[in-house]
């Protein structure tokens, strides 16, 4: 049986990890490669690298980082952040990324999803959607959740699937940073209406939240950053807890 995935997310700026990490065994706390290796060894199923730098040098730095990660890490990883063209994706995949994640660029230019899926295959195209519930309606937000649109989350998700995305990474802006759990109601709707895997993101605070998002939210994978970086949750403990709750995991 296919297992549920646990995915730590690393924020990257100019080739270095951004959010503080609390790994005393790290020689260099800012080195994404070393952090990635530790996560791979500790039972993470995949990794996501989200590049938040905005300089001209960015593409080259990111491509170098991707290459260094691919050299060392023996689990799959996704790279996202500022990807807006076929060329951007090509360079990342050629350097060893397994998947790329696109977000705002897909909203601005939905045909990009079709182009990428046709050229590289759906399996390596993740579309990230940031959304916030406003007056009862889930609306897609851009630029890391800062800019609202009038696009409905569920309609957009359906369109993304039809255009050829292989997977959706859904972040609830209402839950992100709260540590009060994932947006399970919206996730369950996404998961039942769509036929591609859904990654839950935003709100992880404790192990129960992960159980809930897999069971109630019907998520296929769950992504989190700080609870892992600050060692509030050890991935192995989390997986044992999930298994005790009847959730299939790789242990």
């Amino acid at each position, binding site marked *: 049986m*296919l*297992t*549920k995935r646990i995915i730590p997310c690393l924020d990257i700026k100019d080739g270095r990890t951004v959010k503080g990490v609390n790994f005393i065994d790290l020689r260099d706390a800012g080195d994404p490669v070393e952090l990635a290796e530790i996560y791979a060894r500790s039972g993470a*199923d995949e990794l996501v690298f989200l590049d938040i730098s905005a300089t001209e040098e960015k593409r080259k730095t990111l491509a170098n980082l991707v290459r260094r990660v691919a050299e060392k890490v*023996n689990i*799959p990883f996704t790279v996202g952040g500022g990807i807006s063209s076929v060329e951007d994706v090509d360079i990342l*995949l050629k350097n060893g990324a*397994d998947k790329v994640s696109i977000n705002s660029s897909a909203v601005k230019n939905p045909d990009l999803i079709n182009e990428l899926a046709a050229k590289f*295959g759906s399996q390596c195209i993740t579309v990230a959607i940031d959304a916030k519930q406003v007056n009862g309606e889930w609306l897609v937000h851009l630029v890391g959740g800062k800019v609202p649109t009038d696009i409905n989350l569920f309609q957009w998700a359906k369109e993304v699937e039809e255009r050829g995305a292989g997977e959706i990474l859904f972040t609830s802006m209402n839950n992100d940073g709260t540590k009060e759990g994932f947006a399970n109601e919206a996730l369950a709707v996404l998961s039942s209406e769509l036929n591609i895997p859904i990654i839950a993101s935003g709100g992880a605070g404790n192990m129960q939240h992960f159980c809930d998002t897999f069971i109630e939210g019907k998520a296929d994978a769950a992504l989190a950053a700080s609870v892992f970086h600050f060692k509030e949750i050890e991935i192995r403990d989390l997986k044992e807890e999930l298994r005790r709750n009847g959730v299939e995991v790789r242990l």
Partner: protein
Amino acid sequence: MKIVIIDYGAGNIQSIKFAIKRLGYEAILSSDTEEIKSADKLIFPGVGEASSAMKMLKSTGLDKVIPTLKQPVLGICLGMQLMCTYCEEGDTDGLGIFHADVVKFDNQLKVPQIGWNKIYDLKSDLFTGISEGEFVYLVHSFYVKECAETIASTEYGVEYTSAIQKDNFYGVQFHPEKSSDAGERILENFLKVTQPNTIK
């Protein structure tokens, strides 16, 4: 040992090259027929869509070369699927090495299957040191039906072939280069195959 990764423009071959390097070997990428024929071990990768990948193989003449190879060949993911008789994806004939068809997963399931799943009924030296039920990483929408040449199975709505072997030809649906320590062991086992062996 000369390890060649067959390069026909399909997919993420860098990761395979890096995985082989982590095992202490060097692999070269090549689309050159002579280079391929003189290799000790060959990796036949592939990611993407079946009919366009077959077109690329035909345009380089590799579709004629690969079935005649005598040294151990490992097809990975789409590479394995292309070595089969027929691929439903793009309605294309494969290389006809493995006697099985490749069909799409049932629509009731999430497709592609993305993630870690178990391999079992292991029947080859490829799996020396690998436990029944080991987890491997898979990303695919089409699967190889079970057949006499199946050497590992996986369940995703249906029991299907996750590894296959005929003489010197091996295929794995999963990505050994992305399947953590178990994947590296399977890749290492392949690199250590001394002569084509038959199914146990």
